[in-house]
């Protein structure tokens, strides 16, 4: 009996690696610390009422951001482990098998559990406020989306201490990801972690499309919509087209593994290329999904800190929408070398190159906005300026990659790794960092420390070039991706070593960011204006942090950059716009169902990973029960009376 338990435990828990034991201890200690702190300060009720059951988009946004920063830490540790191994190829810091798990985990976490939630966090913080809405269209669904993401991410993260992680790369190509290639549970963790959170992403896409299309303040015609909101709309259009394909792809892979179906297997008539086509039909748009909102953020920031209207509004909108649509006709550039034939390759090479055009247009628009502007260099502006050269180089190497014949050389080399990190870090990560520091005062009512922020920016930026420029060279020298070691005769060592130094510099940059946040919380200066940057769009017209109902009275929009124009009118001695009367405000009630339902999904996923139906089936029943409970619940909203609004407004404006 004891032996059986031992056997089970050594199979169930990942064993044998000191790094993993370290992680086990860290996890147990962290959990214990959280439980003790919450109990000691009697904060369980607060946590439940104010956060776990909230449907307020601003709080949901904050939870997204916290979760994504934790994931950035985890993905970053993975990155540094890989870089350490590559700097000392003889040291055997990571075994090849462990290395495979680490790069797979790193890729999945960075894209799906870091970039996506950080992006959704910013959607939630900014979009309803920018368009003068009281909330998103479906607050309940919004909270459900968050919790699905959260528990999907937890399921995936568990795999490295329980069962073992996926190791077939972040897109899990078969036959490697089939039972024949990966007999363990790692791939199943991947499938269910990504599937559960992916459904959350899809619902967010729907939610924000409806919000933006239907809930703009009166007077906000399409030509007056702020640029970030436009970028969110284009990103969400891409989401609703791409994510159903991901759902199907993962489901089919699961059927192969669970029921022995033959979609992508080598035998039984399966076709592994079909998987590659399907996954990139999601995967390519996915990179535009994460980068488009960054473009929106840069547009807001450039205009605000140049004290000028954004140059080329129309062309910017056109560029973003066309990128989100064109993204669907480029997927094949990820496998030029897989023998689709010259005509097919040619078509996808050209479509890929065409996307460079709208992207170029945008860069010029930002530059023209800055031209002759009164520029102030704040941290958000620094991230924006740092992004431009980075993205230009990344874009050019991207066009090099899109030349189908040349791709036979670059394919799967470090050249590619350098390219996509250049656009993902320089475009996406820098963009969201910019957005985070820009909207931080709106979220919390105080600014982040500028000095430490600048240190963070410079270490990230320099670290970036030190890390990835050598990789272009070593890639052209023939170093392929996903190798955990190489020989001294290759001559790759020096470049790899430099690259690792750069990686650690970025790690230092992350520490600066953590310090920046901690320091600012301690020594913050409260922002009483609600508009600390002298910004242009509606979210800055209300107090910070925004009251729970956002706008006491629905704003009436007459101009693009409405808040800026209003300030100009007042400064010129004209009368401000008349405000409508206060009316009782209609609010959604909190609900525990999204949280509970997501836990049930987690249970379903966990049961299916281990093929334990006795766990999965109760989970399913829980999901069904919470859905029914929601359908039968008619008591979902309430009104805030006018007196109460008056009181809350006075308090918010009074700054206490």
């Amino acid at each position, binding site marked *: 009996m004891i032996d059986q338990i031992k056997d089970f435990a050594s199979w169930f828990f990942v064993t044998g690696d000191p790094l993993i034991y370290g992680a086990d201890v860290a996890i147990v200690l962290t959990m214990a610390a959280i439980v003790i702190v919450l109990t000691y300060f009697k904060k369980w009720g607060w946590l439940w009422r104010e956060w776990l059951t909230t449907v307020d988009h601003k709080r949901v946004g904050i939870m997204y951001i916290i979760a994504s920063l934790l994931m950035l830490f985890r993905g970053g540790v993975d990155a540094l482990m890989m870089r350490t191994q590559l700097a000392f190829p003889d040291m055997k810091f990571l075994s090849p098998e462990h290395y495979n798990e680490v790069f797979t985990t790193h890729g999945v976490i960075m894209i799906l559990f870091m970039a996506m939630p950080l992006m959704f966090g910013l959607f939630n913080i900014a979009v309803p406020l920018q368009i003068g809405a009281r909330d998103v*269209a479906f607050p309940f669904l919004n909270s459900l989306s968050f919790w699905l993401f959260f528990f999907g991410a937890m399921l995936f993260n568990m795999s490295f201490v329980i069962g073992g992680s996926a190791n077939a790369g972040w897109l899990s190509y078969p036959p490697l990801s089939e039972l024949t290639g990966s007999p363990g549970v790692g791939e199943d963790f991947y499938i269910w972690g990504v599937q559960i959170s992916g459904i959350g992403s899809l619902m967010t896409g729907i939610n924000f499309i409806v919000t933006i299309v239907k809930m703009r303040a009166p007077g906000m015609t399409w030509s007056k919509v702020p640029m970030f909101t436009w970028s969110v709309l284009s990103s969400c259009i891409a989401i609703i087209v791409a994510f159903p394909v991901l759902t199907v792809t993962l489901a089919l892979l699961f059927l192969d593994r669970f*029921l022995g179906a033959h979609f992508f297997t080598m035998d039984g*008539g*399966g076709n592994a290329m*079909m998987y590659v086509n*399907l996954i990139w039909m999601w995967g390519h748009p996915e990179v535009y999904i994460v980068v488009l909102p960054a473009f929106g953020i840069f547009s807001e920031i450039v205009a605000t800190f140049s004290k000028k209207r954004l140059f080329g509004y129309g062309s910017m909108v056109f560029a973003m929408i066309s990128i989100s649509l064109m993204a669907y006709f480029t997927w094949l550039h990820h496998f030029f070398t897989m023998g689709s034939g010259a005509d097919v390759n040619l078509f996808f090479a050209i479509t890929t190159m065409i996307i460079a055009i709208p992207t170029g247009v945008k860069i010029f628009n930002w530059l023209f906005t800055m031209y002759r502007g009164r520029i102030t260099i704040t941290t958000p502006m620094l991230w924006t300026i740092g992004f431009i050269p980075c993205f230009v180089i990344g874009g050019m190497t991207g066009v090099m990659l899109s030349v189908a014949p040349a791709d036979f050389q670059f394919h799967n080399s470090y050249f590619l790794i350098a390219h996509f990190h250049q656009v993902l870090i320089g475009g996406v990560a820098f963009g969201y960092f910019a957005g985070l520091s820009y909207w931080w005062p709106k979220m919390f009512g105080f600014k982040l420390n500028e000095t430490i922020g600048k240190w963070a920016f410079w270490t990230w930026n320099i670290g970036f070039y030190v890390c990835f420029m050598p990789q272009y060279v070593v890639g052209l020298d023939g170093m392929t991706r996903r190798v955990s070691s190489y020989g001294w005769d290759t001559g790759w060592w020096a470049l790899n070593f430099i690259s690792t130094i750069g990686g650690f510099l970025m790690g230092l940059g992350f520490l600066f960011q953590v310090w920046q946040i901690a320091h600012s919380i301690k020594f913050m200066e409260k922002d009483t204006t609600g508009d600390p940057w002298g910004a242009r769009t509606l979210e800055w017209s209300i107090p910070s942090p925004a009251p729970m109902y956002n706008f006491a009275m629905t704003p009436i929009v007459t101009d693009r950059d409405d808040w800026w124009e209003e300030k100009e009118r007042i400064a010129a001695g004209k009368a401000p716009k008349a405000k409508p009367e206060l009316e009782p405000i209609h609010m959604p009630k909190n609900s525990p169902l999204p949280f509970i339902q997501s836990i049930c999904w987690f249970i379903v996923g966990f049961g299916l990973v281990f093929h334990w139906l006795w766990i999965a089936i109760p989970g399913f029943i829980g999901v069904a029960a919470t859905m*029914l409970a929601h359908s039968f619940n008619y008591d979902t909203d309430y009104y805030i009376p006018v007196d109460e609004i008056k009181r809350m407004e006075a308090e918010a404006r009074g700054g206490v």
Partner: protein
Amino acid sequence: MAQTHNRSQALAHAGGHEGHHDLEELRKFGFWIFLITDCILFSALFATYLVLHENTAGGPGAKELFEMPGVIAETFILLTSSFTSGLAVLAMNAGNRKGLIFWLIVTVLLGACFIGMEVTEFSKLVSEGHTIYSSAFLSGFFTLVGTHGLHVSLGICWITALIIQLTRRGITPVTRRKVHITSLYWHFLDAVWIFVFTFVYLMGVM
């Protein structure tokens, strides 16, 4: 000044009024977008089926396996249920709660018949040894048709829950929206079935 004031008031009334009415509109619009995503989901499944449908791995293909009379009967049943769900909406618009509930029950029963026949078809295939793991063709077939069946089953549960709500609460703006949405969903599943019928069964046996 007075003019701007009037204009703002008018605008505020045109768009700014919140409350149940707008909420129901939002939900309908959101549901349409959900249907688009569901369309894409089915397109991916159809594409996979069409790519794999000749990969029978030496086993029997569509021609040998499909029995059209049953499928044609299923099709008629589902089409009829779409019609009865339309009658339900008409009854609701006429304010006739009894009629509404009656037609919804008929719709659910027809849906259940459809699912029953599908289950029979599947279990017959399986008992003859043609399962999801026999070949890529059958994997694609069971998954595509099964996903449609799963959607129909969900619809049945959903409409049943709605019938209970209607008996308790009658026709309110909320239940009215729910009826509209479920009937939209039901018609959508009908449309998807037409494609299944054409691309899987008809083209399979021809």
